[in-house]
């Protein structure tokens, strides 16, 4: 052996391996393998240091390396399947039955308010979220962000490691330096510490924060969320104290909304939608309806459900609201706004329904409007009846704009040594004038606890991955203050830390787990000896029964008139997006691809304007325009939407993220750059410049008129009372049995069917996300949506009728209609779509060859085709989300709504075991379960007492395109509104 320098010995191999970690381990083995020395070392008959064989430890290592090199040698050729052991449980985990999902009660915070949920888990993987039926804020339903939360959990773009200046570190090394920094602060009582959080509503977190402030009395705690500012400050303005309004829409005969979207997003939206719908639907012989007036600066799904809707320029809304406040409080309304029939009719209705009306302001509206609304509700004697005032839900309600100002002042004063930013994304969500991107860098040490490496994380040295709400213990209130206990459903996927962990670091017990923190907090509240049982019950139920916030009495005063902002020829109003909110859910592809109820757009926000405005400015859809306000400008694409007030544009916030992740980065434009703290809801003096090019917008629907086909049948309450069968007279439906195909089949067992009440449906799209989560529906991306290839099994069609400038909007959820004479079935050449004995139109994916003939022949166009490989087969984390009861489809096959056949079969198996029929209400489809408005009934048509059978017997029941003799199993109850005859055709 002359080439000693080339050859290796075992020691040096071990040394080299020991230096390498993680991925580089394999790299160095590879290198080792390819060096001539290593080859020589392997092939030598007697290893150079035969002593290794005597040394037990060394021999084992030698064999290990030999084994590794042999395995690597195999990589070049055929790989033998590695031996994998199937390990049965020695002891079965509690409640775990393979194939049977387990539901855990928990909560999901959306902008501070916790949605009460039940999380379906399969083998400890959360796969689907349902509402908690026992919780008053849910009653089994959820809103859209909550429904999509499970995808957020598995988001592959989440921050996955602790980093310091972009280098991976361990959490313990962070703790070391953090605790050192804290001990340095102790001398000054923490004067250099600044903690910026979202709105803190968790009582445990609130208590922890008090503890921190006790330990570091000079430390600062600021909150910024951007959500609910008008609501909080408006209450303060009206009552002189923070209160939380809770509305009882089920008690209200007259509802007046001022730019509100209470059916679509915001606090209590799920319960409000249910309560509101309960006063609108006409099932079971009811012939009364509440009446709903809406004033809007930009059309929303809520305004679409109104009986009368008035588009108003944003600068006019304060003027209008003051006039309305004057009129309903016995004063004299003045000004032009008060002369309209709409105004006078509304005032008359409101005054006639004292104590039974609600005036509500939008979440995006200013404090002044909210204060006026409180004043009106008081004048209308609604307080304590339809509007309850409770203690604030925030642990410390503040004016968050003032908080931001103070924070920036501290930063500019060089007073901040340690800035801890917990959650939120203030760099993106704060108005541009605060320049948080620049100002944050004035803090010496910046620590960021967040789910993503987002815009805020970008300017922080330490980035700590935050736990998803499904990975931690916590607590928090629903809209009425009822406290949810959130339990973890899965161990942190990326070793994240919760806000509780972070604040614990300030105390004597920095490593205390969040379980103990939450439990001890509640133990301090519930001191009885029965705590253990009480706690178990609360965790099991997911919430503390009867913990709604206490009512307070407060007297509202008319807020002093602010100097009215002069209107201008062109104004812009800002709206929180109902799905991605302020951008916090921007990387959730389900939410990005969920069509907005009014614009029907996906993946982008738009510059929304009316037809007339577009014509005046000579703009067309998808024209790229520059929006300039006060010297700041952004660009977006024009989208014409009827009902937008002329001379205004509406834009949604939450888009234009620059560091959101693969789904959110680059979607839309950041309208936040135009906002200022002094007027966060709208801006005047807007300049629009046509940039002379197109920027395509991905809409899922392009035609909004019904073309005389009446897919949505509608009428007024008066018409319905006059002729309850008016719906049935609109078209003739062919008699049963009119078919050349043998139709002697009798559905003797079950006959599944669905009915959808269009009066209740408010187009919120929660059902669409629920369907997507339940049925493993792929996301296709903007490019594919542009070519109308979206995969949603359920879509919500939106039509307009009436006045073109301010039309009535109608929502209609359309999934597979499960026709008894199904046109798709007879044309499939391979029998891949077939009828079953219970009336389901089934899709056999394995048999489908993809001729798409079924889709062509479907008059409802509800079938969806995998034109390309849409399902993500590669991203490991996303595989965990998939529902194991539903086939994951690959490219080239057709798919469509299955009536959640997996749920039907589950219920049938359960019933069969007990030798009984499936009971009504046992099968709840995903869309039905999550519908906040309870607009969907599903069940057995052979059971005359089932909910769906009763709905189908209603006089308003009709089949979509029934004249085609497809005999759909899905039917609709016509939409009935209750307009005030005094307003007439005006709006």
């Amino acid at each position, binding site marked *: 052996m002359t080439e000693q320098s080339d050859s290796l010995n075992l020691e040096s191999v071990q040394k080299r391996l020991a230096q390498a970690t993680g991925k580089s381990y394999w790299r160095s083995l590879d290198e080792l393998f390819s060096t001539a020395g290593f080859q020589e070392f392997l092939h030598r008959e007697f290893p150079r240091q035969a002593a290794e064989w005597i040394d037990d430890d060394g021999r084992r290592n030698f064999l290990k390396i030999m084994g590794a090199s042999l395995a690597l040698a195999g990589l070049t050729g055929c790989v033998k399947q590695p031996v994998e052991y199937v390990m049965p449980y020695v002891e079965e985990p509690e409640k775990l039955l393979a194939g049977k999902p387990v539901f855990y009660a928990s909560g999901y915070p959306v902008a501070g308010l916790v949605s009460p949920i039940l999380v379906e888990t399969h083998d400890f993987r959360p796969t689907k979220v349902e509402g908690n039926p026992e919780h008053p804020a849910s009653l089994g339903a959820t809103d859209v962000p909550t429904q999509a939360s499970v995808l957020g959990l598995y988001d592959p773009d989440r921050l996955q490691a602790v980093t310091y200046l972009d280098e991976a570190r361990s959490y313990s090394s962070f703790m070391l330096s953090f605790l050192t920094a804290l001990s340095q602060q102790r001398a000054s009582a923490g004067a250099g510490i600044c903690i910026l959080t979202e709105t803190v509503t968790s009582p445990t977190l609130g208590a922890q924060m008090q503890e921190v402030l006790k330990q570091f009395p000079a430390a600062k705690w600021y909150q910024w969320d951007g959500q609910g500012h008008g609501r909080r400050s408006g209450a303060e303005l009206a009552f002189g104290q923070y209160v939380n309004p809770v509305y009882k829409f089920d008690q209200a005969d007259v509802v007046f909304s001022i730019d509100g979207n209470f059916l679509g997003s915001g606090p209590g939206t799920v319960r409000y939608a249910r309560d509101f719908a309960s006063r609108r639907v006409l099932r079971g012989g009811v012939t009364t309806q509440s009446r709903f007036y809406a004033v809007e600066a930009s059309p929303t799904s809520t305004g679409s459900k109104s009986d009368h809707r008035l588009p108003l320029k944003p600068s006019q809304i304060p003027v209008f609201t003051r006039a309305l406040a004057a009129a309903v409080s016995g004063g004299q309304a003045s000004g032009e706004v008060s002369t309209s029939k709409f105004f006078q009719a509304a005032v008359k209705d409101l005054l006639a329904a004292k104590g039974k009306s609600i005036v509500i302001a939008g979440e995006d509206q200013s404090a002044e409007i909210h204060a006026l609304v409180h004043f009106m509700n008081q004048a209308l004697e609604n307080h304590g009846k339809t509007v309850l005032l409770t203690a604030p839900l925030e642990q410390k309600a503040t004016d968050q704009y003032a908080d931001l100002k103070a924070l920036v002042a501290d930063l500019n004063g060089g007073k901040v040594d340690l800035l801890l930013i917990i959650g939120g994304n203030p760099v993106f969500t704060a108005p541009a004038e605060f320049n948080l991107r620049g100002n944050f860098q004035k803090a010496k040490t910046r620590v960021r606890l967040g789910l993503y490496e987002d815009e805020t994380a970008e300017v922080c040295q330490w980035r700590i991955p935050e736990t998803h709400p499904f990975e931690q213990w916590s607590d928090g209130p629903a809209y009425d203050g009822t406290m949810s206990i959130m339990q973890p459903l899965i161990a942190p996927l990326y070793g994240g830390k919760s806000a509780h962990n972070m604040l614990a670091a300030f105390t004597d017990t920095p490593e205390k787990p969040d379980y103990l923190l939450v439990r001890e907090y509640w133990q301090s509240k519930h001191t009885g000896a029965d705590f253990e049982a009480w706690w178990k019950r609360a965790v099991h139920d997911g919430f503390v029964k009867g913990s709604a916030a206490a009512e307070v009495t407060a007297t509202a005063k008319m807020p002093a008139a602010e100097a009215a902002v002069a209107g201008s020829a062109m104004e812009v109003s800002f709206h929180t997006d109902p799905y991605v909110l302020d951008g916090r859910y921007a990387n959730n592809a389900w939410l990005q691809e969920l069509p907005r109820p009014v614009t029907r757009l996906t993946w982008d926000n738009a510059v929304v304007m009316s037809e007339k405005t577009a014509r005046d400015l000579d703009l067309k859809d998808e024209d790229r325009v520059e929006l300039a306000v006060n010297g700041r400008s952004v660009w977006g694409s024009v989208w014409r939407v009827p009902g937008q007030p002329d001379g205004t544009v509406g834009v949604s916030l939450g888009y234009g993220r620059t560091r959101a992740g693969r789904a959110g980065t680059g979607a839309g434009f950041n309208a936040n750059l135009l906002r200022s703290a002094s007027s966060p809801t709208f801006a005047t003096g807007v300049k629009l410049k046509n940039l002379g090019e197109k920027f395509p917008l991905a809409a899922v629907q392009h035609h909004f008129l019904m073309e005389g086909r009446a897919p949505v049948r509608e009428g007024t309450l008066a018409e319905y009372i006059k002729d309850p069968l008016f719906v049935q007279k609109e078209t003739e439906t062919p008699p049963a049995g009119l078919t050349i195909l043998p139709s002697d089949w009798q559905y003797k067992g079950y006959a599944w069917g669905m009915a959808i009440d269009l009066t209740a449906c408010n187009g919120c799209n929660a059902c669409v996300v629920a369907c997507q989560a339940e049925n493993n529906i792929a996301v296709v991306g903007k490019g594919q949506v542009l070519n109308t290839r979206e995969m949603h099994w359920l879509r919500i069609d939106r039509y307009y009728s009436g006045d073109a400038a301010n039309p009535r909007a109608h929502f209609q959820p359309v999934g597979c209609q499960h026709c008894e004479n199904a046109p798709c079935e007879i044309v499939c050449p391979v029998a891949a779509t077939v009828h079953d004995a219970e009336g389901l139109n089934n899709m056999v994916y394995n048999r489908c*060859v993809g001729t798409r003939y079924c889709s062509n022949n479907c008059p409802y166009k509800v079938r969806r085709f995998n034109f390309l490989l849409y399902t993500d087969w590669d991203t490991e984390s996303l595989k965990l989300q998939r529902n194991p009861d539903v086939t994951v489809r690959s490219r080239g096959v057709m798919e469509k709504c299955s009536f959640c056949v997996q749920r039907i079969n589950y219920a049938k198996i359960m019933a069969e075991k007990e030798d009984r029929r499936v009971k009504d209400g046992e099968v709840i489809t995903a869309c039905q379960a999550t519908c906040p408005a309870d607009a969907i009934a599903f069940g057995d048509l052979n059971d005359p007492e089932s909910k769906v059978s009763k709905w189908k017997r209603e006089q308003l029941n009709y089949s979509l395109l029934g004249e085609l003799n497809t005999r759909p199993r899905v039917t609709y109850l016509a939409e009935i509104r209750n307009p005030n005859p005094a307003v007439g055709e005006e709006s």
Partner: protein
Amino acid sequence: MSQPVELPDKIYVGPVIDEQHTLASISDKVGGVVLRRKITLGWTFGLLLSFAALQGLAGAATLLFVKGVGIWGINIPVGWGFAIINFVWWIGIGHAGTLISAILLLLNQSWRNAINRFAEAMTLFAVMCAGMFPVLHTGRPWLAYWLLPYPNTMWLWPQFRSPLAWDVFAVTTYLIISAVFWFVGLLPDLATLRDSSKKDWQKRTYGILAMGWRNSARHWQRYEKASLLLAGMATPLVVSVHTVVSFDFAVSLIPGWHTTIFPPYFVAGAIYSGFAMVLTLMIPVRKFYGLDDIITLRHLNNMAKVTLATALIVAYGYIMEAFFSYFSADKYEKFMIWNRMTGPYWWAYWTLILCNIITPQFLWSKKIRTSPGILWVISIVVNIGMWLERFVIVVTSLHRDFLPSSWGMYAPTVWDWATYVGTLGLFMFLIFLFVRVLPMITIFELRMLLPGARVKESVAR
């Protein structure tokens, strides 16, 4: 008696074959193209050009297998696009060949003898092009064989109520019959080539292909019987294949598809486009190979007449389609025709009317019918028109059907075009090869057209 009927001057445009020809000169002229003619630059260029276009098909199909049919412009609601348009178009083109070789044979139209071989070859190649599309257009083309009825472990048959299943039978039958008919018809000529070729490899190749044809009376007798039988089998196919193809549309319930006029209207359209395609190909071939004494003006005139006649039937179809839509008083039907005429694809509809109804009216003029250049241009226009007809049927019916919410648009992608141009390349490539390696005109049938043959025939009778 088969004395040629004296035609008035107004109609008579010349003989079916130049009277100067003899039995030997025909064999020599037609066979010479294959056996002795030098490979010309033009032919090489044409072959290479069509081969290059064929690569578009190869590339597009490869990408399609890798990525899926999503590379095309199809979507929901327009689930069928170029693939089905091209399928119907190619199948339609094939029909002229079958009509010429089968129906005209049975009707004893002897003028067909000069063009039937070529038309049959065109049929075969067109059906080959057509047959590719139904396979390519499926989402999982590797499973397209499930449309075939074969015993299998799944215990599943195709769904026989589906027109697509009927299509499979119609098209495969058509392909088989056309191929057999064409090949059987080639046998005597292959033997002629075998006998007159000088080179050994030619002798061997044509010898094998001729399958031992020895011109014996028994051979001829069997040949005639087989021809008649095959013609009898092919004749219903002229009507049935495109009828079944039209069922793909007519059986569905989509406005614009669901109409009883489709079968006859499709068949007429098929023959119309087929004759146009024969003209498109024949006119240049006749010129380049100096065959104007065999494929005479009489032929062009006759084909132009058939084209005109079918154009009128097709025009009737269009008018009836519009009338039924109006007369049905059905809102969906009414909208459909209105949308075709004034909707976003109005240009396709009106171009189709221009190409398929207006343009062929020129064929009323005998002068135009006997001017090969103008006729060629008209035939191209008709081909484009017939392609547009299928585009209008497939796309404008689907893109706006019942629910306005699901209305959409369709635009082909570069891969749609590549596939289409690729099949044109394949078609032309095969045509180029065909004219060089096989007698493009039926030698033995031409001989029958000669005065001498006719005398014998009359003597025999």
